[in-house]
């Protein structure tokens, strides 16, 4: 039964909600706006909000620095690479736990989760030394390996919660109808699993794209993704606000758009099914 809500009350709530939302969003909005200003306009002591001479020169300037694209590409390779590697390892594992659960499945899941609770700084030194001694320091391969392992527990957990929702009876039914194992997997299970796998992929690309402990500590000039590249703007280039804004806008835009599509998965993936 829906309650009758007066239009006046709704208008007030709408106004308050929009005001709060815009306040929270403001730093991002301000960054995007500043990226279209000239450097002089960006540090104007009477900052203009919308009425300034819009320019694309900062984007040209940032793109002309070939290193920006190289770091952007590093981010793409590292986040996609580590997510795909994680999925290849995790899909069979989550599959087995969801459909052939054993006595210790629950313990195993909890143990996998516990590895995620290990603070990164507790293994910083050995991983740095291992990477250095194996020649993986400041390489994309090294970062892909580390981020795969960092996010593997989350990937397994998310996939497990999705696979768990596929009713086992469907498999039985397909078997009754004489489906072979391969056709069962191909025509029955895969279509039902694809949405869950896609959501897991989405959330993990976002997490890997923004990961800022290992990418900052294990990369220098060559493999640095955008997290490390932008951090290097802290001085003295950070004083060029408009270019910093343009670089920042390009670094966050793809993930912001992906993120808005993944709100629901975010809750599921980061609370390990504890909140639904």
């Amino acid at each position, binding site marked *: *039964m829906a309650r009758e809500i007066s239009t006046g009350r709704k208008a007030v709530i709408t106004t308050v909600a929009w005001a709060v939302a815009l306040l*929270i*969003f403001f*730093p991002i909005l*301000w960054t995007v706006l500043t990226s279209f200003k000239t450097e002089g306009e960006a540090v104007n002591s009477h900052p203009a909000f919308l009425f300034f001479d819009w320019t694309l020169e900062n984007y040209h300037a940032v793109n002309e620095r070939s290193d920006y694209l190289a770091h952007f590409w590093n981010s793409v390779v590292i986040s996609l690479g580590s997510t795909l590697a994680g999925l290849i390892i995790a899909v069979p594992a989550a599959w087995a736990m969801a459909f052939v659960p054993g006595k210790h499945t629950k313990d195993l899941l909890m143990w996998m989760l516990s590895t995620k609770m290990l603070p990164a700084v507790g*293994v*910083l030194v050995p991983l740095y030394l291992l990477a250095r001694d194996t020649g993986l320091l400041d390489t994309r391969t090294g970062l892909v390996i580390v981020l795969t392992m960092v996010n593997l527990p989350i990937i397994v957990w998310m996939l497990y919660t999705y696979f768990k929702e596929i009713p086992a009876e469907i498999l039985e039914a397909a078997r009754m109808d004489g489906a072979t194992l391969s056709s069962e997997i191909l025509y029955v299970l895969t279509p039902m699993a694809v949405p869950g796998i896609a959501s897991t992929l989405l959330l993990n690309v976002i997490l890997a794209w923004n990961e800022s402990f290992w990418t900052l500590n294990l990369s220098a000039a060559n493999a640095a993704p955008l997290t490390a590249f932008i951090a290097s703007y802290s001085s003295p280039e950070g004083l060029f606000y408009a270019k910093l804004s343009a670089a920042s806008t390009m*670094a966050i835009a793809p993930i912001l758009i*992906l993120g808005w599509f993944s709100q629901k998965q975010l809750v599921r993936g980061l609370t390990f*099914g504890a909140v639904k």
Partner: protein
Amino acid sequence: MATQASRTAGRLMLSPAVILLLLWMIVPLGMTIYFSFLRFNLLMPGTEAFTGFENYSYFFTDPAFWPALVNTLVLVTGVLAITVGGGIALAVLLDQPMWGQGLVRVLVIAPFFVMPSVSALVWKNMLMNPVNGLFAALARGLGLPPIDFFADIPLASIIVIVAWQWLPFATLILFTAMQSLDREQMEAAEMDGAGPLWRFVHLTLPHLTRAMTVVVLIQTIFLLSVFAEILVTTNGGPGTASTTLTFLVYMQSMLQFDVGLGSAGGIVAVLLANIVAIFLMRMIGKNLEA
């Protein structure tokens, strides 16, 4: 029913993930524990020697240790207070009927997707800079002296930045939990003449307890590892004013190359995180039974 064959197949499918995670956990952690008992500095190769608990006593007596521990606790509790309090308020607000609710939610959630180095730089330079920042311009407009955020209140400034990043997470989780609130019970209470405050305290808050606990525990795990925000804004300073445990270990091992000391600090951080982890694991485990 699972057959013997499918069970064997299941084990085969599980083993890569299990073996890799086992290696991932045991090898580096074992090395950290081992290093923590060694005199081991990368600048002085060849001088490694077993020293027992010397690194731990150095770590605990380091003049930066207590400030770092206190800063860590202040950072975590500060961010938690802001995000949980703000998250509840926002969840209640978003739950009301309004126009454009979807868009409002999109705007509120956005900060979570901004990479830490970008949010740190944007806040540091464009908002909080005492000369060219927007806050300084606003202060001047009001005739007030601008605040030099990272020199005068470094830790509080970092708390604001980190809270801004995590507020969307808390809001999203609490808002999701709000969806399962019993609306009929709410309406019944309203008909019985219960005011909005009574309903909030006696119905909404108890319903959100579980989600609040999850938010607190998960955020604590991540907040204990806050790194980029400090590196980009204050580098732990001035002095030790914004040095956390994570940052202290980073400085000792990556800047002073004292592997032994850094490892001892790393183990202390692991123990600290474990206290939180035990509670979190218990909650998640309970849910798994259901």
